[in-house]
């Protein structure tokens, strides 16, 4: 029987070899893509001052972080729940003098103190890239293209991308469709629920057509454009169209102009990534402002644990069993050309049971009988 103390707390889990290998491969594939596009990797720490994590971007919720008092400084520390504010801090401080645009990538574990309603996990592997210094259409196009390429390299299949306009309501409320300030929150909420009836009740009659302007990108953007009589959205619509051009064939592209789920700090542009077999989204990104330096940036994050496990039908990896007293130089040579070796420690070990497909005999790799 397992001692209850050996169980892990809710929302935390061990990744055993098969899964760990899959995640490592996904991470390596995605990081290689980011590197090839000129994004330099940074490694911020796990723990920081709460204030620096919370203050760097709008909408970061410190209550979702594990927090405690630092015995050294007596200030409140927090475990990171999102690496984007950390990269923002690096860009605003240590790399403030670096030439712009600045391209940074990162990968690491993030934790939250409470799971969300639908996903019990409290630790996730976040991987992403930030393009600091620009939030224009060109930057957005690059980030969309790189994000999709990285996600595909991480092994995701059946990818679809959903664009959104996070500051749409604020932009429209300012002039084109004025609403009382105390109504904006209710209107946002009902837009988010896509509930036309409640939206009308909340005084958002003018916003109802936006609910119908969601769906496949080309149709949806045309409907948004048709609504935009005063032209306040003109530059945004053009920017979205240019971003959509960067979406490769085979990736479904949709637009939902009023989606705000998970876009706490994004400004004019945001997107969510989905993949077949993954419950919920596998990543998101968009444009935002780094507080402190007030610098514009565009970026994205992928959550690799959300990707489904590879097919069970996948062939097990080949490995070469090295018996006692084998020729070490031969073994080193075979490793150099890509073999994975497992060396015997004692007589009588079973190559097959140790997961080996081959056995070294002299200088030859011989297949092990099943």
């Amino acid at each position, binding site marked *: 029987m397992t001692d209850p103390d050996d169980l892990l707390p809710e929302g935390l889990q061990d990744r055993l070899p098969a899964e760990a290998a899959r995640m490592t491969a996904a991470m390596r594939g995605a990081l290689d893509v980011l590197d090839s596009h000129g994004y330099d990797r940074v490694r911020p720490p796990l723990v920081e001052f709460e204030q620096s994590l919370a203050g760097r971007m709008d909408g970061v919720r410190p209550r979702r972080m594990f927090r405690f008092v630092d015995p050294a400084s007596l200030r409140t520390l927090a475990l990171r729940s999102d690496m984007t504010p950390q990269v923002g801090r690096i860009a605003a401080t240590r790399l403030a003098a670096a030439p712009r645009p600045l391209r940074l990538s990162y990968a690491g574990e993030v934790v939250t103190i409470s799971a*969300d*309603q*639908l996903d019990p996990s409290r630790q996730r592997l976040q991987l992403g890239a930030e393009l600091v210094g620009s939030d224009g259409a060109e930057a957005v196009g690059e980030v969309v293209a790189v994000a999709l390429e990285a996600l595909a390299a991480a092994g995701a299949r*059946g990818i*679809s991308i*959903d664009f959104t306009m996070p500051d749409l309501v604020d932009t429209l409320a300012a002039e084109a469709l004025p609403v009382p300030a105390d109504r904006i929150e209710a209107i946002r909420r009902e837009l988010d*629920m*896509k*509930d*036309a*009836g*409640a939206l009308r009740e909340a005084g958002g009659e003018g916003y109802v057509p936006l*609910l*119908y302007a969601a*769906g*496949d990108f080309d149709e949806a953007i045309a409907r948004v454009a048709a609504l935009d009589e005063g032209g306040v959205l003109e530059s945004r619509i053009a920017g979205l169209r240019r971003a959509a051009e960067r979406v490769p064939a085979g990736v*479904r592209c*949709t637009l*939902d102009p009023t989606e705000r*789920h998970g876009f706490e700090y994004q400004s004019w542009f945001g997107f*969510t990534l*989905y993949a*077949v077999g993954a*419950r*919920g*989204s596998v990543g998101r990104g968009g444009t935002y402002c780094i507080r402190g330096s007030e610098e514009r940036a565009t970026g994205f994050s992928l959550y690799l644990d959300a990707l489904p496990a590879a097919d069970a039908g996948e062939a097990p990896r080949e490995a070469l069993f090295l018996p006692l007293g084998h020729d070490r130089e031969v073994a080193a040579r075979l490793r150099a050309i890509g073999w994975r070796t497992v060396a015997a420690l004692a007589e009588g070990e079973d190559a097959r049971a140790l997961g080996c497909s081959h056995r070294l005999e002299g200088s030859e790799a011989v297949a092990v009988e099943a």
Partner: protein
Amino acid sequence: MATPLTFAIPKGRILDEALPVMERAGVVPERAFHDKGNRSLTFATTREDLRLIRVRAFDVATFVAHGAAQAGIVGSDVIEEFDYSDLYAPVDLDIGHCRLSLAAPADVPEAGAGASHMRVATKYPNLTRRWFERQGIQAECVKLNGAMEIAPALGLARRIVDLVSTGRTLAENGLEERDVIMQVSARLIVNRAALKTDPRVGELVERFRAIASGPEGA
């Protein structure tokens, strides 16, 4: 795509009214569905790529929020109670009307008359707590799954929050309706990720929308 869509519908109150609406949207269950003796939980429909599941109202929301079912029909009371972030309620079907109300025996004083704490029996603890919070009252909710009306008489809680349609059940149990917390009607709900990734879900929404906004019987 080979995988069928799953459409969740609640047992009970809403079902009879929902069937004609579903039919107009092209969601027609197989005959076994109407057979009272049939204990199945899953039913085929006239559409090959669509099946129905019949579960409790609260479970409709849970199945859809988790993406185990892509769409469903449920009362707005249930949607508000869970407040799931991955649930859209795009169409008010204008059926299953009732209201969620606070009720109490006649001798219980009005809520808010100096009270900062009270005990309420309800099937909707989250909704109830949030509503009382807005009145500046900390409500201690006793979760019941049915027959709330007998709670005050037995001293479990002096107030209840429950669905009311005619008010007869309340009256028969010596209760008065005090405040309407929300008006309830049945909604079409869909899973957020399914709507974004599966065009069939969007089509389903469009069809229900057309019915809800069109003239009666069209």
